[in-house]
């Protein structure tokens, strides 16, 4: 453990997620200097502060456009965006959809505890229907967002769900996600020991089961990813081996030449508003 004051509650699911991330990233065939983490705001978004890599801890919901900018500017960097469910699916919901569509090699991790922790217990996009929370005293009336199903539906070539209570499973999924060439989405089920009294470690342990293999059929994968209740599958739902990842071009230290600019001085005006 790092010699640092950590802002998470004792028993938080973020601890095993952090430890597994440190182990997985440290074991990658990638030099640590080429790892960049981005995050938004929330308890999970503090993750990069507790890992020994470069990071840009930005604003709530904005870890993904930061990751896109970094990846486009520096294709050689390994970019991992990590934040909570409120950040990735709520405030950043539009970015979640469109970052997947960009076909860039970015890993998107969501530490999903189905509740807003840092603001003290309001419903999140993944909160189950009927669950009572700070601003839903009569119970949440919204249909829960289905992150991995949505991810596959908008074109994610890699989508997985794992569980903070199963470090061995997390390790395998994180490693595959980071090494996958393309946008890889991982929803990480984790308890919130302070504000989610329903979806506890015990609750999950009684329900989760490991998938053997990813589905070959995209629609079967969506169906499995969308399943929830007494039996909750964890594992890689979908992994498209044929996926063609978008490659950015090398830009760093590649200056525009003065001759090129001189040539541009004589280009035509553009009919565009």
């Amino acid at each position, binding site marked *: 453990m790092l010699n640092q004051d950590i802002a998470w509650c004792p028993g938080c699911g973020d601890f095993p997620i952090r430890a597994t991330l440190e182990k997985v990233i440290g074991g990658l065939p990638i030099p640590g200097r080429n790892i960049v983490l981005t995050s938004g705001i929330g308890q999970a978004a503090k993750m990069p502060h507790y890992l020994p890599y470069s990071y840009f801890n930005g604003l709530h919901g904005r870890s993904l456009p930061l990751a896109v900018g970094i990846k486009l500017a520096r294709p050689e960097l390994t970019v991992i965006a990590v934040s909570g469910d409120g950040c990735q699916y709520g405030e950043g919901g539009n970015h979640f959809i469109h970052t997947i569509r960009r076909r860039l090699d970015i890993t998107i991790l969501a530490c999903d505890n189905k509740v807003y922790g840092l603001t003290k217990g309001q419903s999140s996009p993944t909160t189950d229907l009927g669950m009572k929370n700070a601003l839903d005293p009569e119970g949440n009336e919204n249909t829960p967002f289905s992150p991995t199903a949505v991810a596959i539906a908008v074109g994610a070539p890699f989508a997985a769900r794992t569980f903070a209570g199963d470090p061995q499973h997390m390790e395998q999924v994180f490693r595959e996600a980071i090494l996958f060439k393309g946008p890889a989405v991982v929803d990480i089920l984790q308890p919130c020991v302070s504000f989610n009294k329903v979806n506890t470690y015990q609750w999950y342990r009684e329900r989760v089961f490991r998938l053997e293999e990813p589905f070959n059929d995209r629609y079967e994968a969506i169906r499995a990813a969308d399943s929830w209740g007494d039996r909750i599958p964890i594992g890689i739902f979908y992994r498209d081996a044929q996926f063609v990842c978008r490659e950015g071009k090398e830009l760093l230290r590649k200056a525009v030449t003065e001759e090129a600019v001189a040539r541009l001085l004589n280009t035509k005006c553009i*009919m565009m508003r």
Partner: protein
Amino acid sequence: MDFSVLIGGEAGQGMFSVELELSDLLSRLGYHFFATKNYMSRIRGGHNFHMVRVADRPVHALSGRPWDMVIALDDGETQRRHGASLREGGILLGNDKVEAIEKEARETLQDVTASNTILAGIILAVLGADPQKTKTASSDAPTAERLEKGQAFAQRWGMAGKFPVPARAGSHCKLDGNQAFALGALLGGCQFMAGYPMTPATSIMHYFSTVAAELPVHFEQAEDEIAAINMALGASYAGLRSMVATAGGGFALMTEAVSLAGMTETPVVIIVAQRPGPATGLPTRTEQGELNFVLHAGHGEFPRVIFAPGSIEEAIALSRLSFDVADRWQIPVFVLTDQYFADSVQFLEGSAPTTLLQRDYPIFETGYKRYTLTSDGVSPLTFPGLSEARVEVDSDEHTEDGKITEDTALRARMVDKRLRKMDGIAAEAVTPTCFGDGEAGTVLISWGSNRLIVQEAVEILQAEGVPACALHFGQVYPLTPKMTEGLSRKRLICIENNATGQFAQLLKRELGLKVDHLVLKYNGECFTVAELVERIRKIVGRGEEA
């Protein structure tokens, strides 16, 4: 010798094509000219008009005098709206003649769009352009043939040589405002732009996406303006000089990330091309209404710089400089422009800087601290992956090594560190430009796109014996006392394309300088020279605003 033509019609009838064709030819034939447009927010129909002024000397504004020629491509709307502004003895090229041109294009040339080039040929004939030179200046044989047909029409209708203007410009390059900003950005070393299309900023994005095919730059179309500026900040953090461009409405979405740039000290350039608000306002017209917005955008207190160029040279120079300023001080830098300037085509007078600016890539080792406290507030900046140095950047208040902190003493030191950059920024401020009689008791103050309109107005007033001078602010924030030395003893008239005199308010707030008169326009259109002269005359004559 000064000739102005208006080409009006419905959106989609080809006025823009006529303007593009004509301005290309005028440029190649060595005519001084200025072209701008007034268009509606629609793809077909409505009423749009394009205005081209040709003269025997450099011109950079609409004269505002009656039109020498009006070309009406529609069924009467152009004539109804602009007929009364046609000068006595001016040429009205109306529906009957346009039909004859279109018939010729359709039947003889088998291409109805050929009528755009024929119309350009007619205008050149009216100016007395040498047919042989016109032919040589044509880009290809079909164009030459069409221009010749235009010449023949002009002769048949007795228009040829009616308003002769000599071609005295020699060789120049012509640019619209947005091209100048894009070019300036390339010269400033910008390699990354992200954007969400919005009038009147879109053509800057188009420029970047076009040049990206062959230059080491990238343009990314974002899902919204929030994403656009966060992408730019990500790219800047990763090592590239980066920018975004938008209008007021798009900028409203960017404001949280302006604050992020302020807190994380990530350099970024933000071009805001103004159009009339509030809300959607007049999406395709012009205004200078966003000065206060840009000045105050972003929660919290942090330094910024705002430029507002008013000529093609200045647009290139300040757009270029903004990337150095952003990097030097690790701040957001704004370039404020507007639809009028963005869409106006004019010559680059004099020369623009051509040397490229570039980012430095210093190497640090482990133990590097992104937010090291320094005397000028600027911490050493480097980028991830260049060495073992970790680049740790945080939107929370942070320690020197970029970790979240709630230490109140450190918080105060970090605020001081960021804000003391303003001292250095102010010391390097761009000084305003003075035109006309520096001793005159009346000073016309302008910022942004009014620069050259005011300059011509001053020339006219001086010719009439009214002593006047103009002071143009290419940098509107921060303002320094040195910029306005001696001005408190003068009669100050501030000219702005907005309803509340935002720059005059800023002069008062920042420098305690009181402007005596405001000349404002906020109907969505730019000032013309004649209109401005008339309003200044009233103030100077009566000592008060009309």
